[in-house]
């Protein structure tokens, strides 16, 4: 039996990687993938807790998160394509039309 803390440490590492990626990278698609990584890090902690306590609600939450992530991926990718078409770039620092 793998102890709970292993899962949580892994989840924290994955989440930290996601955050770091989101902060460091400029490409929108990479940012998007970083967000997915963070969501899945959270998912991992959810299922770990669910298994540990033998409770179902953790699993249910994971499904919710996956559904939202799928919807987000659909909308997000559509936005990314639209941005690329108009701006000819995927660099977030150049997408700054509203900036003062």
């Amino acid at each position, binding site marked *: 039996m793998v102890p709970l803390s292993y899962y949580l440490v892994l989840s924290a590492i994955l989440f930290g990687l996601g*955050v770091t990626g989101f*902060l*460091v990278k400029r490409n929108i698609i990479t940012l998007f993938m970083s967000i997915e990584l963070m969501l899945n890090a959270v998912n991992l902690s959810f299922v770990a807790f669910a298994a540990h306590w033998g409770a179902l609600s953790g699993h249910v939450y994971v499904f919710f998160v996956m559904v939202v992530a799928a919807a987000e991926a659909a909308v997000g990718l559509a936005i990314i394509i639209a941005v690329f078409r108009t701006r000819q770039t995927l660099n977030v620092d150049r*997408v700054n039309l*509203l*900036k003062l």
Partner: protein
Amino acid sequence: MTPNLHLWLIPVLPLVGAALNGLFGRRWPKRAVALVGTVFVGAAFAWTLWVASQFSHLTQLPHIEEHAPWITAGGFVANFGFYLDQLSLVMALVVTGVGFLIHIYSIGYMEHEGGYYRFFAYLNLFMFFMLTLVLADNYLLMFVGWEGVGLASYLLIGFWFQKDSAAAAGKKAFIVNRIGDFGFLLALFLLIRTCGSLNFAEVFPAISRMGVEAAPGVLTAIALLLMLGACGKSAQLPLYVWLPDAMEGPTPVSALIHAATMVTAGVYMVARSNPIFSRSPEALTVVAVVGCLTALFAATIGMAQNDIKRVLAYSTISQLGYMFLACGVAAYSAAIFHLMTHAFFKALLFLAAGSVIHALGGEQDMRNMGGLRKHIPWTFWTMTAATFAIAGFPFLSGFFSKDEILWRAWSSPYGGWIFWAVGVGTAGLTSFYMFRLWFLTFFGESRGPEDRHPHESPRVMLAPLVILAVLAVVGGYVGVPHALGGENHFERFLAPVMAVPAALEHEGAAAAAEVGTERMLTAASVGAAALGLFFAWLLYHKRRDLPEKIATALGGMYTAVANKYYVDEGYNAVLVQPVVEGSTRLLWRGVDAGVIDGTVNHAAGDVRKVSDALRHMQSGSVRSYAGWVAAGAALALAYLIWVGAR
């Protein structure tokens, strides 16, 4: 059962005229405007005459007609009511009568001026307020008239408002008058406090029950504050400065408002308030001294003026000084007598001066006149009557009224030889500057341009001159003193209103016995007038080179007089400039721009600065937002861990 005389008609008729001309006059032809303007004033005059004819039938005096309550506050009541007694009857007759004549004159004088309807509307409005002032049955309503005539005066002085000097003169008159009005208002407050009422019918009996004040008290305070108001309205020292400038207005206005009626409102008010003044010897002394000084001061300035209207303006101030001198020695009837005769001859002088100006096409400088006697004989002869009347030559109106004042200044318990001496000196100066004007204008050679053709004024202007000339000659016969074999009907008529405290009555009666003294004093004042005539003749007719030499010999003194003692400059430096500077630097730049605007602007500026600092958080950079979120999350996490650790 007292009859209803419908006194309200007297002021309201001119108001109707003012409203009609003011509202519709612009579209009417000049003839209609003049007709409306004159007819309503004429009707007011006719009604006043009718009231006068009914006057002897009145069993109860004063006759009061109250129409509606105006202000009711606690025990204090002020009504729209009118008050008829001997004094207000005389005043109403003078105001409507002289006013009517001047309206007729204006038809001709203003013929070629723009704003004809405006002129008549203002003039009628003035009549309304003046009659309200005269007929009011309480001080508050009187104050309404008082302020109203100030407004009308302001409008009419600034009638030619395109001219900077006229607009400025209007403002000056209004502002200087405000200083006096402030005193009047304070006096009213004190009266309410003392008597609980402002109605003449309640105030005067209440005051009469009080004794003569041994030491200055509340009555002295009221009297002095009223006198301050009178000083403003009647152009006495130190508030006389507006009247000479008021000559910027059209000449009929100078005649009506700034000579015959409005400026005498102060005298009327003091005479009306005689129960108050008579109970404060100190206040009476102040009134007499102010009047005396003003009379002398203005007369000296009048000697060195070259503008024909300004000479008359200073003469008016000086004559008003006489009236206050009379009030100050508790000879109120004499003051009102002089007020009446002065209204006749001074209105005539102004109208005749207007006729001269009219004849010369707007020339007002006497140095450019001369030799007009043959060109405008009617004007010349009427002006002559007025000049002799004001100089106090025997058996003209000014002679009787002026000598009455001088005699009272000598004999009254409040008077003294010094008042008399200043009065006689002033009479000599008056005679001098009036004959100077007379000689400069009508005698000698014409000093104007060669191609000038003076023309006599139209009949509509001459008729009022002739009527006023007759009044200026015979107007004094209503008050021929005992010493000259008369009955002094005028004083007897006014006596019920001018009841002096019993203590004075006795001494006055004793003094009246000295007929011989009175005759000698009269001879002295006639001598002074003759002396004035002689010097004017010598300097301005016989030896035209002398005035130059005398002026040079006097040097600085002459310059000071010619420049009106630099009073305007002094007021400007001492009062006006500090106020302007204080307002500009402290109130405007300091308080308004600095504190009030500063608070608002700095509040806005500071908010902006804070926002500028905060704005940098909204960088538009997605990753910096993410950084904030992450940092926030980390912080929240750290907090939770810290809490959990405890």
